[in-house]
């Protein structure tokens, strides 16, 4: 009996291991191995030995630092903006039902099905120089607005729109844990909308917000298409910068160094994300 149980447990463990083995192998082969290769490749040079010259260069080069800084603040602002824009929609969808809610949901999730390249060209047609907005303004004899195209605002607007669906879905799953009865109970005792949000809802979706932010940061830090098509040429975000260093400047060493630095930042945010998840687990248990 005991032997049978034990072999059952062993079998379970074995099939569990097999289930895990494939993704782990893929992870090692496609992610960890190249990362390791890149890291080693930027500091060890067969024949000449160890050198961190390319890193010293990156962190002393004013242009590289400006690019890193631009990437950091665009990423931060875009992540926060996504949450700020998605939150009211998520609240509306969680606590209202009906045909309007269904329409709002469809509209908010729509960007998920539009490729970034199309988003970029639609953006240029609407907000770019001599785009629809300008045309309308001119027709109304109003002065043209300064176009966000090719300024940092360009990729921010594009990225906020592009990332809205995922942010919305993540926030909605967090709000799903806030029961309607608990919100009704607060309303009953006299809580207004703001009190309701800050005292009852926000404290209970904190970990979801951290997860959402971390998720966004991970994707945004190395975003390429929208910053490349809509952003300024200088300074530029890390995605386009890497690409240009690699192909236009034919400088794989510095491109790889930039990639490793980008990876290090993402890994740091990944850590925050994992810790938030662990904390959230503890919270619900």
């Amino acid at each position, binding site marked *: 009996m005991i032997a049978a149980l034990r072999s059952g447990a062993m079998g379970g463990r074995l099939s569990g291991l097999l289930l895990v083995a494939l993704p782990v192998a893929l992870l090692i082969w496609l992610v960890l191995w190249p990362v390791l290769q890149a890291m080693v490749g930027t500091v060890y040079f067969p024949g000449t030995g160890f050198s961190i010259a390319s890193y010293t260069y990156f962190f002393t080069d004013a242009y590289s630092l400006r690019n890193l800084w631009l990437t950091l603040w665009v990423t931060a602002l875009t992540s926060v903006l996504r949450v700020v824009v998605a939150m009211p929609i998520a609240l509306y969808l969680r606590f209202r039902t009906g045909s309007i809610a269904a329409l709002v949901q469809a509209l908010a999730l729509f960007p998920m099905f539009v490729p970034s390249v199309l988003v970029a060209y639609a953006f240029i047609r609407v907000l770019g120089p001599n785009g629809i907005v300008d045309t309308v303004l001119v027709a109304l004899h109003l002065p043209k607005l300064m176009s966000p195209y090719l300024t940092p605002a360009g990729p921010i607007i594009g990225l906020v729109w592009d990332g809205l669906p995922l942010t919305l879905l993540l926030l909605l799953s967090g709000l799903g844990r806030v*029961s309607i*009865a*608990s919100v*009704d*109970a*607060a*309303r*009953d*005792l*006299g*809580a207004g909308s703001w*009190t309701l949000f800050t*005292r*009852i809802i926000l*404290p*209970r979706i904190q970990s979801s917000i951290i997860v959402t932010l971390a998720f966004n940061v991970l994707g945004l830090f190395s975003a390429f298409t929208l910053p490349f098509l809509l952003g300024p040429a200088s300074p530029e975000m890390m995605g386009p910068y890497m690409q240009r260093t690699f192909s236009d400047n034919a400088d794989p060493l510095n491109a790889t160094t930039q990639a490793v630095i980008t990876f290090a930042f993402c890994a740091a945010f990944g850590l925050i994300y994992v810790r938030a998840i662990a904390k959230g687990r503890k919270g619900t248990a």
Partner: protein
Amino acid sequence: MAQVRLTGIAKAFGKVTALDAMDLVIDDGELVCLLGPSGSGKSTLLRVIGGFETPSEGTIAIDGVDVTHLPPERRPTAMVFQSHALWSHMTVHGNIAFGLKLRRLPRTEIRERVEKVLDLVGLAGYGARLPSQLSGGQQQRVALARSLVIEPKILLLDEPFASLDQHLRERLRDEVRDIQQRLGITAVFVTHGQDEALAISDRIVVLADGRMQQVGRPGEIYAEPKTAFVAGFIGAMNMLDGTLAEGEVVAGGLRLAAEGAGPARLAIRPEDIALTEPEDGRTVTVRRMIDFGSHVVIDSALADGTHLRIQTDKTIRVEAGERVGIHVEQWTVFRDGEAPSRYRSDTVRPFREVRRYA
């Protein structure tokens, strides 16, 4: 003074009519139970009173003031929800103090009032705990305290103990009744448990399909159900389909005196059937005997196989397959669109007198 007056209340969700033509006055200090099967509109009616739903038609007045379009926080009501309504990130004290803090009361008064109400619900000393550190019953006590602490005139409870086990539910409902009487507040209690309703209410409102079937004192509803639905829903009842003709109602081979003609439903309470010696047209076959200790229930079959439930004295013993005579002491005949007619027989026939105390 806290009287609730509902006039012509109706509520529709799209095509679903959740409530229809409700007229009801709940008096000051009364505990009224809303009783009905699932989907009958109990919660909807309670939410309409609490201000969480706006009725499609009709008006609600509390103490003569029209509150139909006031939001929940501007009504003198407080609602206790079924479950999952405590704020898990706040302590028990924080949960209860929330409503008082919103009213900007001084700290010392808040502390005093929270402690007093914790004492009232039997949770003195639990203030610092988190809801997750409490049992289900304690959690619902906190929910009750949270509503009581703001001193509402009307307490609304939506199946507050439905998720608890039977014993705890019975204890808590008695406590609620006790607290309600001590504070002298008006209360509306939603339940789908008839025992609960019979045990604690001053009056019961029986709902079915969004309509009021009957309003009355517990004993009255039990003894004199106005519709076949109420008869079948409250307490155990044998409901038999039968036919009225020639001063008799015939159902499943059973014949009882009754006026009228045409199809009818015959309702007999199990405890209104006594056992006698077998006699033509009044005989059943015992299928099973269930001994509840305090009384005995006999599941029997009429001549045509229809089940008949009989409740009788705990000393009586019968065997499966045995044929026994029955004597019906009270019965009610329901006909569509007519007031029910009630009958009673006044002859008492003893059953196996000798075996009674054997």
